[in-house]
């Protein structure tokens, strides 16, 4: 039994089919990458799994129980958290205030551990809108990791980061997930980063699953090469 499983997930906006029959299963300590060209439905997928968007059909299971219709709050309390592609922090608060705010609700005992792992120590007393963009991305990620969630859904944590920051961020994600036994879904634009970081990869194209497997299998898949990777692979 998987920790977190989505079966035949479909999301339609009127006539537009954003997702069609997508399946995914997350396991503890495994980083599961989702890649795909623009418009493949990656962000919709995270929204659907995190409860932000309603499913047209399909269901989501967590720990063997159906949670398809559970609220965002319920999911967070049960141990499913997410980060945002468009940085979603509390701009006017200091970094420490907002981390404490989230930690308070989610009974985090080891905030220092997260702060150290993401190297946020030096900026803890700065107002969030004044810290560097890359650091704000780390704050966004930190808020998703607080409270020992069992599943984290990461929506492009490297969006807008320069290459070195991006490498660092993915390193953090992988280490934290392995250490804490978290089942992670990593939606990412940076294909090289995903191949480097993830244990399993699902490739989406036009709302459907194109291919699924280990990085090596995906890299060799003809359909993926044709649709997405092109000559770069």
């Amino acid at each position: 039994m998987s920790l977190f499983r989505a079966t035949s997930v479909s999301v339609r906006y009127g006539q537009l089919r954003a997702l069609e029959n997508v399946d995914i299963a997350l396991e503890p300590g495994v980083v599961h990458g989702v890649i795909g060209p623009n418009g493949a439905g990656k962000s919709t997928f995270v929204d659907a799994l995190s409860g932000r968007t309603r499913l047209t059909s399909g269901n989501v299971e967590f720990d063997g129980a159906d949670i398809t219709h559970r609220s965002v709050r319920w999911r967070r309390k049960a141990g499913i958290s997410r980060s945002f592609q468009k940085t979603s922090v509390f701009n006017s608060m200091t970094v420490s205030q907002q981390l404490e705010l989230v930690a308070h609700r989610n009974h985090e005992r080891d905030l220092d551990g997260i702060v150290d792992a993401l190297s946020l120590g030096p900026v803890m007393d700065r107002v969030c809108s004044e810290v560097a963009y890359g650091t704000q991305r780390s704050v966004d990620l930190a808020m998703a990791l607080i409270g020992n969630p069992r599943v984290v859904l990461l929506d492009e944590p490297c969006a807008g980061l320069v290459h070195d920051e991006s490498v660092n961020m993915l390193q953090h994600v992988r280490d934290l997930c392995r250490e804490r036994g978290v089942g992670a879904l990593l939606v990412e634009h940076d294909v090289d980063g995903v191949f480097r970081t993830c244990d399993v990869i699902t490739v989406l194209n036009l709302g459907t699953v194109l291919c699924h497997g280990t990085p090596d299998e995906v890299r060799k898949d003809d359909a993926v090469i044709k649709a997405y990777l092109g000559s770069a692979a």
Partner: protein
Amino acid sequence: MTVEAPLLLSDDPLAPTPSRRLKLGISPRGVAIGAVVAVVAAVAGLAVPSIVNDLYWMGILVNGLLLAFMSLSVGFMAKHLGLISLGQTAFFGGSAYLVCIATSSWEWSPYQAVAFAILGTTAMALAMGVLVVRATGIGFMMLTLAMGQAIYQVVIQEWARDTTGSFDGVAANIGDQTFLGMGVSDLLDPTVFWNLGWIVLVAVTYLLWVAGRSRFGVILEGTRENTERMRFSGYNTFLPRLAAFVFSGFVAAVGGALYGLNSGYVSPELLNFLKAGDGIIAAIVGGLGVLLGPFVGAFLYVYAQAEFNNSGNLYLYTGIASVLVLVFLPGGIVGTISTLSRRLWSSRTGRKPQA
């Protein structure tokens, strides 16, 4: 939670991260210090009648004091929910009406009447809050405006005349009973009434201060700033907003009950939108970003109104003065003073001011 020494800010990235305990909101020590300041302010204010020693000016000061409840209640919601309510008259005026109706028609004692007015109006704020706090921005303003005007319209109906007196209003009837040792003539006398009103005003301001700095205040701030992230962090984003709305209604209700006692008479103007405008302009002129902004703003506003009224062109001058303040002191009068003093402080100490 335990009391902790403030963490020292270090700019050296190599310095070890100090171990952090969760300390959301103000510490018990901060609450105690605030209480001492409040008690000192309350006692000091009791000297005002003997210093001013003039019935006309005491009347103006009492009017400012009563308006302060309304502007504080508007200011609390503006600061912590980012919402402007145009309907606080429903709670201020509603409570004043209940005091007058309960003491006259129902012949209740002033204590019963005041308790009923405050509790009843706060309950009304709860019912209205359930309907309106989900709205944001303009929607919230329109809903609160509609609510306030609805109460006004009900009160002026001819069929309600037996209870509300319609356009004639209602007079309180305390007879020879007393409220906290004050008879009717004492309650009407601004030099006597000031003491009661001032102590209650300071107490309410202190409560607002604690609420704003407490864990509750931090949660409100988070919700105001990023509601979605709060939900995804496991927070209920409805109940804290509702609680803030009800608390704000309670503050207006306390002021309204005092108004009823002091004036001994209520008329529909008290429920009118113009009255709500007084509270809002006073709050904005004083400054919405700081707790004391609406507090000071109310006194300034009443003083200015008295001066402008003498000239015979009340609304023209009120408008001009409001525009001047908003253009040249966008943070309000108290807000600007507090920003300037913080800047002065940081340039003297060479440290960045804490946000």
